[in-house]
């Protein structure tokens, strides 16, 4: 009887430790509005990743994730797939040729072929996502052994992930920037290993995506 109580106690402690360790993520979102926004149900937006930097590029998976959040739910906004837009607008939104400022966008829209294609798409806003996730503060050590009778690991590892992303929204009616939303999420992950490594991962990028996506949806809807 006592043994069972002790087992339950240790189980509960382990569960609490797991929950407390895997929940170590903080997300901060800042919004800066420069102009009014509004979107009707038949209008669309496109979310594009910035890829002109030498040392990093905005991951396609993050762009897809934000697009998924913005387009989901009953209040979802229609989002054009990034690759479809890039292919249709080729060569104007490639890493080396994409407009970096709204003045470049104004120049681009003077080209009849580009303006016509944008109109065909029914794009109301272009959202530029720029940022990356950095891994730092790695510590601990883990050793794994494998032999004829089996294998196992022993040790402890920890690291910090820091996601910094910014979404800049361009209005294609006024050809101006209407604001930006930035997100900073960070969290510490742990990997204790006693025979089997147990990853207790901080879902930093997923939290940044959720936070940014939901805020972006509200921002574009003007609420």
């Amino acid at each position, binding site marked *: 009887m006592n043994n069972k109580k002790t087992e339950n106690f240790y189980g509960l402690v382990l569960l609490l430790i797991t929950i407390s360790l895997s929940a170590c993520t903080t997300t901060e979102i800042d919004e800066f509005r420069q102009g009014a926004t509004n979107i009707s149900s038949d209008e669309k937006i496109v979310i594009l990743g910035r890829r002109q930097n030498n040392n990093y*590029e905005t*991951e396609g998976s993050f762009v897809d994730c934000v697009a998924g959040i913005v387009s989901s739910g009953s209040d979802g906004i229609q989002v054009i797939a990034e690759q479809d837009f890039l292919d249709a607008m080729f*060569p104007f939104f490639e890493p080396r*040729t994409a407009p970096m400022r709204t003045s470049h966008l104004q120049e681009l829209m003077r080209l009849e*072929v*580009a303006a016509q294609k944008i109109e065909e798409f029914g794009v109301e806003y272009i959202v530029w996502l720029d940022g990356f996730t950095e891994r730092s503060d790695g510590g601990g050590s883990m050793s794994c052994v494998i032999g004829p009778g089996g294998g196992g690991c022993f040790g402890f590892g920890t690291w910090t992930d820091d996601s910094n992303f910014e979404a800049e929204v361009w209005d294609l009616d006024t050809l101006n920037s209407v604001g930006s939303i930035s997100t900073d999420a960070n969290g510490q992950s742990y990997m204790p290993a006693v025979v089997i490594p147990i990853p207790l991962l901080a879902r930093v990028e997923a939290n940044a995506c959720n936070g940014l996506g939901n805020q972006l949806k509200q921002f574009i809807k003007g609420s």
Partner: protein
Amino acid sequence: MTKSKQQQNFLSESFLSERCSLISNVVAGRWFTRIGSTCVICLLSACAANTITLSGTFPSPLVRKLPLTVGVYYPDELKNYSFIEFDDNTGKDQYIIQSGTSQVELFNTLLPALFQNVVMLETLDNVQSNTTLDAVFVPAIEEFQLGLPSKTRLNVYEIWVKYNMRLSSANGDYIADWVMTAYGKAPEETFKSVDSGVQDAATVAMRDLAASFTIGFSGIPEVNEWLKSNDYLTE
């Protein structure tokens, strides 16, 4: 148990054990052969260079066509272009990147979108007799560089290509000869193979070339001068 029965049992046991041993030998032999052949394949594949054949489809550029009939000639060096990446430790071929087909595919998509008419030329001989051509275009690869994460210690696959573009009139007179560079990178990801990383980086590099070529063609000083002097520029 009588002696004859004992003998019979012994015989049958011995027969069974022989059969078992024969079966086990056959099975072991098969396994040995399999393991042996796997080892040989592994050893051979460790020695052989990995061949990566680049492929890809490219979008047609969104531009207004120039009112030109251009003859296009792909030299064999371009059509069969391959780059060999050497292993730094052994000095042997590590990767063979076959890029010729994808280069031809790229120009076949790009040029018809840029010029009113494109005529594929099998040879440059007797081009002078073709009076319908306004110009002859010959692309070539001068240099190719590959950056692998295992060598550069960066978490990206990189490809850099230097092209030489030559434009001449149908009678062989020089119009322009210029160099263009293309760069592409693709992030290294968990479970992403080298083949796939190189392929992604190459696709980005070739799109980069197509974008620069489309936007910059009329802006090449000699080309621009030739287009203006022949009233080919509409705006």
